[in-house]
């Protein structure tokens, strides 16, 4: 992974930095709680945790404007929390309850929020890529200056539809930022074993799409890259690719024993590159916050997450007649 790009004197206010800390911590604690509820049998099926990758969505959300859209795959809890969706509704969807964003009918992989311009939550690897370009197509058609963040992983980057989409997005100059969240493992297959190119964003060059590598463990570097990418799109220059190098601490899903990498590898990233620790250090060393300030944030986050967990347990299961609703508009 590249060295951290941001300097010791970050070009953001102390308040912003604290906000990023808070948002990343919310995602981490939320995901830990989700893992716990899964262990208790309250969450079923597939559940893909975002722990380790928090700086990606928090940094990019810091670069958005109101009305910008986002769409992603099934590792989607972090994206939803970062764009401001209510943790209660997200957790209740994980437990399959009426109070969930999809009334319990979508689950971990399928949530949406029209209000927050979050378009899912897609379970088929890379299907969200043309969908994201389609959202950008609609914005260009309406000429509203909006940008769509289309997230996909290093695994999805080997699907053919990604390149069909690159071609059309470039051809039609669609305002879409393709965010390759490269966490180095497509389920259990390392990038080395699956991907012919070392840096995936290079593939955009074949379509004339500019891009760059971003240190995904550094929220400030991500934010800066996001601002550059959105400016490119809003200027009418078409799509942009951000290959964000990140790392997932947990298994691919809850039932992944993660035997394809060593414990030392995971531990090393956690100790040396953790995105939350990074901001914590910046806050403390720059005297932007005291230990007590951060403890207060931790406490606040814990409360939010516990409240979401409680809500997700108390919210009733959907009424039986919900089986038959929302099939046709």
């Amino acid at each position: 992974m590249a060295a951290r790009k941001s300097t010791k004197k970050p070009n953001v206010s102390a308040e912003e930095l604290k906000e990023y800390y808070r948002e990343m911590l919310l995602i981490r604690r939320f995901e830990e709680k989700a893992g716990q509820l899964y262990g208790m049998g309250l969450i079923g099926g597939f559940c893909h945790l975002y722990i380790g990758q928090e700086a990606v969505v928090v940094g990019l959300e810091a670069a958005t404007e109101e009305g910008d859209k986002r769409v992603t795959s099934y590792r989607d809890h972090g994206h939803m929390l970062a764009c401001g969706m209510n943790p209660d509704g997200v957790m209740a969807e994980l437990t399959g309850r009426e109070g969930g964003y999809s009334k319990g009918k979508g689950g971990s992989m399928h949530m949406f929020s029209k209000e927050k311009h979050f378009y899912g939550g897609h379970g088929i690897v890379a299907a969200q890529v043309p969908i994201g370009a389609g959202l950008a197509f609609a914005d260009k058609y309406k000429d509203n200056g909006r940008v769509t963040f289309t997230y996909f992983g290093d695994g999805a980057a080997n699907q053919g539809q990604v390149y069909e989409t690159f071609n059309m997005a470039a051809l039609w100059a669609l305002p879409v930022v393709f965010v390759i969240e490269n966490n180095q493992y497509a389920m259990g297959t390392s990038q080395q074993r699956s991907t012919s190119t070392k840096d995936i964003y290079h593939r955009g060059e074949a379509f004339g799409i500019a891009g760059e590598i971003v240190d995904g463990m550094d929220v400030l570097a991500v934010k800066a890259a996001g601002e550059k990418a959105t400016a490119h799109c809003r200027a009418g220059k078409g799509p942009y690719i951000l290959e964000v190098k990140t790392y997932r601490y947990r298994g691919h899903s809850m039932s992944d024993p993660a035997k394809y990498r060593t414990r030392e590898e995971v531990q090393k990233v956690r100790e040396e590159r953790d995105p939350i620790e990074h901001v914590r250090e910046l806050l403390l060393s720059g005297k932007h916050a005291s230990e007590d300030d951060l403890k207060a944030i931790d406490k606040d986050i814990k409360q939010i997450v516990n409240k979401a967990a409680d809500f997700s347990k108390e919210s009733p299961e959907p009424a039986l007649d919900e089986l038959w609703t929302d099939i046709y508009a």
Partner: protein
Amino acid sequence: MATEILMPALSPTMEEGTLAKWLVKEGDTVSSGDIMAEIETDKATMEFEAVDEGIVGKILVAEGTEAVKVNTPIAILVEEGEDASALPEAAPAADAGNEAAPAGSSEAPAPAASAPAAPQVDLTPDWAEGTELKPQTVREALRDAMAEEMRADPDVFLMGEEVAEYQGAYKVSQGLLDEFGSKRVIDTPITEHGFAGIGVGAAFGGLKPIVEFMTFNFSMQAMDHIVNSAAKTLYMSGGQMGAHMVFRGPNGAAARVGAQHSQDYAAWFMQVPGLKVAMPYTAADAKGLLKSAIRDPNPVIFLENEILYGRSFDVPVLDDFTIPFGKARIYREGSDVTIVSFGISMQFALEAADKLAEDGINAEVIDLRTLRPMDTGAIINSVMKTNRLVTVEEGWPQGSVGSYISSVVMQQAFDYLDAPVINCTGKDVPMPYAANLEKLALVTTDEVIAAVKEVTYR
């Protein structure tokens, strides 16, 4: 405050597991993310991480213990300064299990009520008597439908291969580029999977795309977006967003184009909840149904036919003519047998009815027009009168539209049947190229006549 650590479920199906190894001991301080234990499931050995911070106060289940039920307390975490020795022993595992289990909902939904003895059938004519009619080809009718809807709604646009500058591979979109410009009539590269997905995204973004497949044979490349992205999103989002769009193009066999370009997909798409499926025969239906499809907030599969494009039918001269979905048309009234068909196969049904009339057999011919929703009431109603049913379609026999109709009629009008239902279909083979074999593979008028004679015991 002490926190119980429970035996976790580490896969969707795990009920119990072996606590293989503790990696912490009593008195150790742990923070979230630390690996506490190794647990063996039926699939693998998994590492179990701490979620909370604290000190391991007590280990309740020794390492090596097998068959530890999910949700059994396995350790207790205490805060600094808390006395671990005063902790109670493990609570019975059953309690935790009960708490975790969501409220029961095993109650099965009531089975769909069987249809009333005589279903209500909408018999209102498609247009008022005395309406001016003019002959028009199916091709022109489809073009007019799109043009009228695009004039009425700026969010409607057409995309597909060769739809703009080439004026349509089958000339269906002739003139649309000139009238609406390249912003709304868009040539795509040959990438069905990709542009179907972009169409779905544009629909999520508030537009009303018409996605043309040069033929539906190529829609197989886009099947994932049609089914997983377009049809299911309204449900998966709890009603928040869906895909207001039309996928249209020629479907079924043309002539002498071989196996990969000659397939009827009616039965495939008809199977999917969330999709609507139309397959018109006449020009009036093509126009009226396509206008309804473009206005419909759901994803609609609109199956046209290359051979029918050039056929002329009377089309009413009306400012805004639509045909509702789910309303079959009784094309020809009769009393001896019901023939149900749709799309191009209607011509075999109608030809057969003409010839059968010469033999004194009076066939009622129903054109379904839409397959989802399907006007099964019209079929049942007719069978109650004729007591005999033949279905006609171009598609393959196994899992055909006709086999679905047969099951509905069996369940809802069994006592009215005087003969087993016969499904006339295409033969159960890939389409051959040779002219004589191709003819043999398709359903024919003679086969429909033979089937009718069989069910009427003539």
